[in-house]
């Protein structure tokens, strides 16, 4: 299927001259390879992203269980760990320092990039953009396929780094030089770091190819009548996400290229006046600046957190409106606040660098800009709450996760106001308070939004439902567990307990947290186990789940529910539906919902 074929949907509605408009998708023969492996169907690519992301989520989650074991029980011996991981990483059943840092680093890298960027955007942008806009496929299905396979390659390289002798990268997910630039500085800075950079470069290429496609599909391939202001909020969110990615990932790549030259070319962009104790050697590098890397990294790094949270916001808005049986409150305010977040995302990166010796005046500018983000965030929260207000709420698993998202987003957002202040950051920087903040507001919120999306669109993806009982158990244990894990970390952080430390029992003042740490670790294991329940539910339901028998099981207005229950490549067998109204006509004129495809009645005016 050529790229041109995807334009047919569009061409078919615009000029009848292109008569070949019905020879898409379902006419050509598909082999196993073209259907399931090198597929150019956006729905299959979405599933590939989702399942790859899930595998990474299990691995990344497992890593956190391992290092929580160390933090909760620093003195205990677990002989089984030595049996499983070998005596290098878990000598005597205790997690070794090098391994601990590798775990922390890989947990961050995997969850931030491979799960919550690749897994989240990759899945829902691919799945929903063409279906909700009324397009046959992406603007370029071929680039889209490449986007997945670059993601796959990045995954393979990153995974392989876990198995090399010196271990994976272990300088933190941010990979600050000089630690990341000098192979002699630590085990993980040797080959592991090179593989990390290569993998991340491949990941950047994957994100860019995906992002380009998402943007041009949204702006160019909307069906007839689908004006920008009739788009569901999911699409708006995915559009802003893609724009952020396309503008910020290349800068990260620049930073990585300079880092590679420092590692292997002998340049000193980031290096200056260094003495390495392990080799007892003074390095000749002069004039470099490690802070330069931090600027380049956080210029991506900060937009990255919005790349994670915006899709979740979009999914939640849609799921919430459908299940509250009410129009989303303040549609234009939602779009406007996402736009504001996207702009501010590029203007706040230095709030990660308040304690690097940043000019205090510059710091205060970044404080102001950072605190400004509270405004659009608060608008969004207000709109979600008012959407729920007096709604006819159906507590489906997706809806519960959407509500859980809002709860988490509020809790984590509030601590952002603490951390955004440069003066408070002197005390809170690099403590468990930061861990608590970003896990709640970005990590858990992001993943809850993703779960909301998966439970809601699962029937569209696989033509079957997931099991509700397992879903409810999954939700409640995850929500309560997440609060139990991360809430106490605020107290530890306020007391000054640092993040990333292998063992804090050397400080008498932190011994009071021994019991708390054991509790956190125990809950982390329970929550991890429940995620496996979700994974079971997911795969079991693909084959044995209750079959979907109605085209529109949730009573939603959007276009994906006008497609067949199991849509083929091309999505709609006949003509592409035409859109006559916005996506949120719920509880209107005495009707439960009015699909977007229904023409305006005589008593209605255009939205």
């Amino acid at each position: 299927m050529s790229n041109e074929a995807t334009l047919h949907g569009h061409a078919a509605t615009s000029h009848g001259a292109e008569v070949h408009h019905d020879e898409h998708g379902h006419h050509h023969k598909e082999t196993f390879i073209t259907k399931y492996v090198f597929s150019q169907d956006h729905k299959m690519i979405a599933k590939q992203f989702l399942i790859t992301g899930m595998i990474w989520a299990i691995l990344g989650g497992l890593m956190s269980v391992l290092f929580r074991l160390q933090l909760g029980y620093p003195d205990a011996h677990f002989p089984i760990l030595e049996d499983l991981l070998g005596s290098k990483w878990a000598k005597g059943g205790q997690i070794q320092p090098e391994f601990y840092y590798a775990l922390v680093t890989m947990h961050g890298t995997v969850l931030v990039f491979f799960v919550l960027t690749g897994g989240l955007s990759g899945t829902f942008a691919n799945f929903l953009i063409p279906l909700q806009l009324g397009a046959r496929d992406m603007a370029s299905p071929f680039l889209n396929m490449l986007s997945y396979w670059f993601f796959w390659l990045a995954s393979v390289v990153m995974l392989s780094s876990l198995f090399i002798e010196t271990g994976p990268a272990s300088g933190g997910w941010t990979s600050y030089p000089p630690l990341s630039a000098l192979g002699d500085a630590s085990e993980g800075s040797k080959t592991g770091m090179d593989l990390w950079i290569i993998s991340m470069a491949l990941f950047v290429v994957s994100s860019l190819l995906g992002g380009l496609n998402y943007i041009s599909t949204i702006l160019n391939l909307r069906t007839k009548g689908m004006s920008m202001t009739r788009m569901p909020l999911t699409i708006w969110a995915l559009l802003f996400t893609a724009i952020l990615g396309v503008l910020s990932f290349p800068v990260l790549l620049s930073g990585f290229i300079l880092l590679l030259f420092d590692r292997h070319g002998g340049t000193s962009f980031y290096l200056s006046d260094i003495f390495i104790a392990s080799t007892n050697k003074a390095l000749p590098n002069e004039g470099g600046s490690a802070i330069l890397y931090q600027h380049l990294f956080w210029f991506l790094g900060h937009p990255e957190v919005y790349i994670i949270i915006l899709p979740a916001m979009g999914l939640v808005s849609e799921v919430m409106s459908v299940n509250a049986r009410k129009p989303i409150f303040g549609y234009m305010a939602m779009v406007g606040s996402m736009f504001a977040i996207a702009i501010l995302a590029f203007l706040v990166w230095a709030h990660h660098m308040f304690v690097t010796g940043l000019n205090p005046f510059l710091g205060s500018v970044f404080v102001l800009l950072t605190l400004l983000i509270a405004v659009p965030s608060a608008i969004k929260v207000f709109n979600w709450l008012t959407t729920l207000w007096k709604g006819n709420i159906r507590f489906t698993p997706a809806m519960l996760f959407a509500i859980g998202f809002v709860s988490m987003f509020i809790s984590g957002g509030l601590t952002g106001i603490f951390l955004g202040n440069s003066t408070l950051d002197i005390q809170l920087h690099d403590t468990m308070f930061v861990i608590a903040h970003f896990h709640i507001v970005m990590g858990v919120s992001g993943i809850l939004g993703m779960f909301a999306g998966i439970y809601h669109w699962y029937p569209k993806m696989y033509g079957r439902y997931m099991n509700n009982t397992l879903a409810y158990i999954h939700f409640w244990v995850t929500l309560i567990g997440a609060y139990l894990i991360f809430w106490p970390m605020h107290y530890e952080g306020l007391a000054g307990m640092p993040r990333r430390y292998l063992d804090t029992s050397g400080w008498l003042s932190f011994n009071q947290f021994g019991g708390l740490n054991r509790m956190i670790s125990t809950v982390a294991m329970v929550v991890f186990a429940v995620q496996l329940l979700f994974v079971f539910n997911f795969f079991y339901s693909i084959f044995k789940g209750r079959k979907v028998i109605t085209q529109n099981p949730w009573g939603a207005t959007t276009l994906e529910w006008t497609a067949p229950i199991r849509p083929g490549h091309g999505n709609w067998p006949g003509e592409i539906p035409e859109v006559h109204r916005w996506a949120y006509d719920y509880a209107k004129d005495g009707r439960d919902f009015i699909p977007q495809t229904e023409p305006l009645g005589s008593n209605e005016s255009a939205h």
Partner: protein
Amino acid sequence: MIEANIKVNEQRKKIHPHKFTLWVALGSIVMMFAGLTSAYIVKRDQPNWTTFSIPRAFWYSTATILVSSVTIQMALKAFKEREMMRYRNLVTLTAVLGVAFVVFQYLGFKTIWNSGVTLKGSGGGQFLYIIAGLHAAHVLGGIIALIVMFIKAFASKVRRYNSIPIELMATYWHFVDLLWIYLFIFFIGIK
């Protein structure tokens, strides 16, 4: 009503999705070079900054890439007028000029390297190797794309009237040209 619909569709047809994708991609490449040149500016104000002198080869390479922009534009015109012989020659010429550009860049690098500016250090020279090197990589990518497009256009017996690929190619080519002009002025002006 029908007229209004046609109007809406015409408006949306204004830009081909692949062209639009290319423009977004160019924005993305701009961000990469913006990141690197801002790193250059920040680094310049710090101690141990070193400079280099612009080699003569860079003037030649600049002239070469400017000419190649003209030739690809003429190639596009020839294609639209269905003058396939002229089109064929101009595309070949453009690719040759592209290769010549990369060779001149290499010679320029060599001159700078021989003047004692190697990869050791973190001054203007080291930035130049990386920034101009990445730019040359983008030109090489363009040359490969040009060759692929060229082979595809003449591989089948079916006559192709679709000018989109060559239009995309021309846009990209002008972009790498302009990017080099920007970088060249940047390296001359900011030492």
